[in-house]
């Protein structure tokens, strides 16, 4: 078998954007291995419009595995059901998203199958029949190229790196009820097992996560005080729902911003299309977290700040004058 399985993510019955990236990465592996791509989604019921949509991104078949407990992420039920599906399907490779859920799920599936896992990869390929990956290590200060000698080869893809490519082809949809055994003998049931997600407390409506946002506006000590992050929130808002606000370690450690927003070695590694660093000097551990952004803009009053060494475009000046002006200009663009 040379098939590739793409494991998708849904929330509240709708596919998450990162799922398109997973299908895109799986398609790339499928083409290199000369195999088909199945997309698997676990849900409580039907996931709207997924087959056509995913077909367009390269899935030959979309399989929905339903279980009453699969509406939310059920770690034990999901990992058991996926491991069984992989075994039965004899896949050559399995592709996950390196999201909060994927990074939790993929190791469980790998351990169940007794095969290695390459997490958070930024490139996949096939050399002499073996799956190869590239993954950032040491917070992006180096790249590790690995060969996965086992089958199936399990990988999870860093969000925002695998740009979805449209193909003029529709997938075939299939739906099956997941036969997940109940508890007893460990491993847990579908959802009522030993680990249960009780609820997902949503952050502000529509708030994007820095790790997944196409545009990130980050602030550092140069903002002088927590309340001043308002000007960054206004700038992010001007992009019309595509930007998130990030922060340097210094301001997170000072309690100005939540850890969820931290970009850098002990925070998140981000790869947005556009990264705007405001009042951030550019400590090595911050640069590690954002150097894979496609375009970097730096705004800082110190012309010698290290951030200018990695920035594509820089403005030297008072951020309290530059940022509001930038917000105005972006608002004009978005009408």
């Amino acid at each position, binding site marked *: 078998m040379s098939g590739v399985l793409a494991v998708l993510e849904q929330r509240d019955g709708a596919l998450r954007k990162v799922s398109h990236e997973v299908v895109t990465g799986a398609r790339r592996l499928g083409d290199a291995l000369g195999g088909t791509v199945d997309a698997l989604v676990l849900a409580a019921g039907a996931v709207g419009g997924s087959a056509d949509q995913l077909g367009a991104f390269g899935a030959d078949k979309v399989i929905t595995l339903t279980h009453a407990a699969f509406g939310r992420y059920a770690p034990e039920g999901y990992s058991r059901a996926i491991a069984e599906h992989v075994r039965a399907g004899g896949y050559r490779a399995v592709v996950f998203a390196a999201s909060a859920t994927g990074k939790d799920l993929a190791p469980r599936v790998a351990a169940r199958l007794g095969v290695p896992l390459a*997490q958070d990869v930024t490139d996949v390929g096939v050399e002499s029949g073996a799956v190869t990956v590239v993954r*950032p*290590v040491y917070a992006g200060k180096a790249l590790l*190229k690995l060969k996965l000698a086992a089958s199936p080869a399990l990988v999870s893809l860093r969000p925002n790196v695998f740009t979805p490519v449209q193909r003029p082809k529709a997938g075939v949809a299939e739906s099956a009820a997941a036969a997940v055994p109940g508890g007893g003998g460990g491993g847990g049931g579908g959802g009522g097992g030993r680990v*249960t997600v009780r609820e997902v*407390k949503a952050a502000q409506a529509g708030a994007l996560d820095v790790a997944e946002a196409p545009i990130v506006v980050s602030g550092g000590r140069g903002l002088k005080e927590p309340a001043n992050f308002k000007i960054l929130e206004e700038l992010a808002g001007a992009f019309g729902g595509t930007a998130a606000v990030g922060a340097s370690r210094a301001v997170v450690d000072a309690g100005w911003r939540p850890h969820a927003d931290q970009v850098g070695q002990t925070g998140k590694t981000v790869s947005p299309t556009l990264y705007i660093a405001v009042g951030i000097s550019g400590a090595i551990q911050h640069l590690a977290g954002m150097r894979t952004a496609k*375009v970097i803009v730096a705004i800082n009053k110190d012309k010698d700040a290290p951030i*200018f060494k990695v920035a594509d475009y820089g403005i030297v000046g008072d951020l309290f004058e530059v940022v509001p002006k930038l917000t105005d200009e972006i608002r004009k663009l978005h009408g």
Partner: protein
Amino acid sequence: MKIAVCIKRVPDSETRVKIASDGKSLDEAGVKFILNPYDEFAVEEALRRKEQAGAGEVVVVALGPAAAQETIRTALAMGADRGVLLQVDRIPADGLEAAKALAAELKGGGYDLILFGKMAIDDYNHQVGPMVAELLDLPCVTTVAHLEIAGARGTAEREVEGGVEVVEFTLPAVLTTDKGLNEPRYPALKGIMAAKKKPLDTKPTTVGQGGLEILALMPPPERKDGKIVGEGAAAVPELVRLLREEAKVL
């Protein structure tokens, strides 16, 4: 409360990465090694849980070279009771092999909790904790940023994209800790002195090669030189023009 904390010796986050002559590993010359920062949250949480329970034991387990004894002593200085070093020459690239070695040590240990940092800041593998949980058939919650335990049940909160997942679990369990869970203590001088006398068991360990083969360790691609667009707010229109017309990101 009997708690195991699995820790790792890693290069300091300030390390400038130099690639060794084999082209596959870090040149460790002059590199300062530390206790993995995410593991500090795990050690701290274990100490607090033991202190709250009023009794128990915190055992620190590390897989690593002989030099990882120092890393274990750091955790002992924070207050852990004893340490176990599973001594290997080199930690395999395959996280499942590391998980197997740790699971073999932890199996049958009677632990109420087994804690890990959510990931190591060197290999970013982000997997050994949940793999150990699967190998030991224990419930597991990863990247825990808030934790409540009452009797044999716990509630953990973990950050997901755009929200916080509230997860209920039963003990014994494996948890991996994220920043925000607690504020790790600094070892006091008294703790550092006491740590020298605490038991540290070194066990020569064999780990498999696993199914991951390192082909190369490479420097990241250099970013091409950028430009200073100008000074102050007056430079903003030109910046926006460049972002639209040159970079094509707006």
